[in-house]
């Protein structure tokens, strides 16, 4: 049974991870974990808020394995494609790339520069059971700034609109 749990924990914890950090700080780690379970330990332990370099934190184990913490994921909202059969810039086989996308501006801690990141959805298949869902929102805006909005299916303009996963493409440095 632990298999399903682990998988779901993985899937949903990452989704709320960014969101719950401030809660964790406020209520204290212990009581927070008592409420929400134990696997958030790494993420909730007061480590820096996004973005930060995944590689730079390789020694911390759980953190290193958290795809939501990778710097370019500062405004992602979705299942990561690298755990869905694709990679961080490639949609999985048999899907299509979204014709439209939203954009984030994330700082790369290696060079302290801001980069524009295009978050594209991969389309036409179901979300992968057990894939990590990340929900970060740096610079995110409601639909009146559509190109910055992440609470919408970016497969909307494709022929096949089913949402599968999200890739994160470095488009270049931001001013």
């Amino acid at each position, binding site marked *: 049974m632990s298999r399903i749990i682990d998988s779901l924990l993985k899937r949903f914890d990452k989704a*709320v991870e960014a*969101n719950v950090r*401030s809660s964790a700080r406020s209520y204290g780690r212990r009581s927070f974990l008592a409420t929400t379970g134990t696997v958030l330990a790494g993420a909730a332990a007061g480590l820096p808020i996004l973005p930060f370099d995944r590689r730079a934190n390789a020694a911390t184990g759980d953190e290193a394995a958290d795809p939501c913490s990778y710097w370019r994921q500062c405004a992602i909202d979705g299942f990561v494609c690298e755990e869905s059969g694709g990679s961080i810039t490639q949609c999985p086989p048999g899907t299509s790339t979204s014709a439209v996308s939203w954009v984030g501006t994330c700082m790369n801690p290696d060079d302290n520069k801001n980069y524009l990141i295009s978050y594209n959805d991969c389309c*036409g*298949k179901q*979300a992968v059971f057990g894939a990590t869902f990340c929900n970060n929102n740096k610079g995110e805006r*409601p*639909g009146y700034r559509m190109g910055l909005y992440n609470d919408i299916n970016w497969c909307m303009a494709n022929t*096949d609109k089913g949402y599968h996963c999200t890739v994160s493409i470095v488009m270049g440095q931001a001013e």
Partner: protein
Amino acid sequence: MKRQIHAVLSVVVLSGLAASGAFAQGVEPETLSVMERIPEGPHVYVMDFGINGASPIYVLNGDDLSLLGSITTGTFATMKMSDDKSTLYSSSAYLRRYTYGEVEAVIHAWDPQTLSIKKEFTVTPKVAQALSQRGTLNASADGKYLLIQNATPATSITIADAVEGKDLAEIPTPGCWTAYPSVEGMSFTTLCGDGTVAKYTYDASGKAGQPAKSDKIFDADKDPLYGDAMRIDGKLVYVSYGGTLYVIDDSGEKPTLAKTVPFTEEGWAPGGYNLMAYNKPTNTLFILMHSEPFDGSHKAPAEEIWAIDMATDKVVGRSEAHHEASLTVSATDDPVVYAIDHMGGVHRYAVEKGDKVTLTQTASREGVTMFPTIVEADF
């Protein structure tokens, strides 16, 4: 056909039955039936947002949060309870092959007591496939029209006839998002990325002319407004990421900013999706709040629920929350707040009124849904 099948299988069953005399001795034969409706009383409706496949709506007892039944809608669904609580509307997408193929955007009118369909019709498949939110599905004040948000990603509003059940027309609303109906008449107000608020007036065919745009009243770069809005004392009340209420008077030809109400304090900000709830009898606005905000924390789950007295614009209560991201409140003199957390749980709060407003969790149920996005009550 059904009759025939019954007959066929009855043979299997009846051949195994003992003489009817035996019935008297043990368990009596029973009859299969369908419950006609959920039990009377207060009810809560929680949407479980489907990214793939169906978005169920779970219907709970408003007192103890026990499950009473469910409603099934399509993908990327949202819902809206009618003002008279007689109809629960939903808007959702049905993909012919579940994850690909032709899309039908469907409006359902559900009976919130029998959980059955009163009306079902399709509208343009341009309907926004967005997370459930109050601004993307609304009914006009008289209940005759539905206002439905589209995104292709170009934005527009579909006007549908709620009575006849049909798509009337599409009104382009470029750069704007959400549609809240005016208090009277055939108009709606939408929030635009250039910092204005626009009012569109439509006719009986659903068509609209040019909008009346407000002056620039907010800065989408520096302190953006959430799409969530409450109708309070005839005005539309929005909230900014930073914690300021924007009170919009959209009763005239052109919307104007009536006032702003900065209500938070250093280190605290609003957070969530459908993050405000207004109770009219007590003139109180409830809002989900979190501490130590940062760029990107605007959907953070709540650590506290704040109560704002809309007569004095003062925060009159701060109560412990349970990581909720959306909430609603009853319309009753004694408000009951229902809030849903990011992990699928539902929380009920009793409200102690007075100079100091205090919320106390009186019931909570974990694991009600996978991905709860919006909650409604029918009282």
